[in-house]
């Protein structure tokens, strides 16, 4: 199951809530303001590095570019909208709002 997160981890507790329920191996895709979670050196970087050990982590490149987030945590994969569609094709979805 693909989990998407669209809120900044600084403004919402949704990332911390979501990861309590995500099963190992399930991909997590960060979109919209959610992409700040994968920026290197932020307060949430250590949490994300922990998540990445159990789950593939993706971020939507158009949202990263729009926000000038250029330095990412190691191992985060970027996708465009077509890559987002591919993930939805491969997995059922759980869009955390």
């Amino acid at each position, binding site marked *: *199951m693909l989990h998407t997160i669209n809120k900044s981890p600084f403004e919402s*507790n*949704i990332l911390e*809530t979501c990861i*309590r*329920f*995500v*099963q190992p191996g*399930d991909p997590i895709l960060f979109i919209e303001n959610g992409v700040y979670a994968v920026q290197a050196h932020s307060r949430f970087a250590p949490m994300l590095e922990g998540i990445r050990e159990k789950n593939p982590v993706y971020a939507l490149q158009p949202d990263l570019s729009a926000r000038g987030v250029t330095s990412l945590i190691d191992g985060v994969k970027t996708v465009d909208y077509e890559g987002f569609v591919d993930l939805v094709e491969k997995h*059922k*979805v*759980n*869009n*955390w*709002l």
Partner: protein
Amino acid sequence: MDVKKILHVMRHAPHGTVYTYEGLEMILMMAAYEQDLTVVFIGDGVYALKKEQDTTDIGVKGYARTFAALGDYDVEKLYVDRISLEERGLTEEDLEVGVEILDSETIGRLMKEQDVVIHH
């Protein structure tokens, strides 16, 4: 006709925003379609079930008891996340509605079984 497993995730406190109320309207409508519905309360969503809500003075309609009526529409699977309840200093006795309290791992596996998940 396919029977789909559809999960509604209630995540917002009541009254501050309309999400829980309009979410409840959606659940009531879907209940008529004989799908396999589940409702889970996570985070501030657990506040929707708090006893003794009296909305008179804010001038809006209350609806906590409507969750209790979901059983009449054959929506029987109502689950509450244990950690969400505990960190809010609430217990099962504080809730208006009879629900089953589950741990994160069980809710996580339940989510993964669904065909459709809708957050409110």
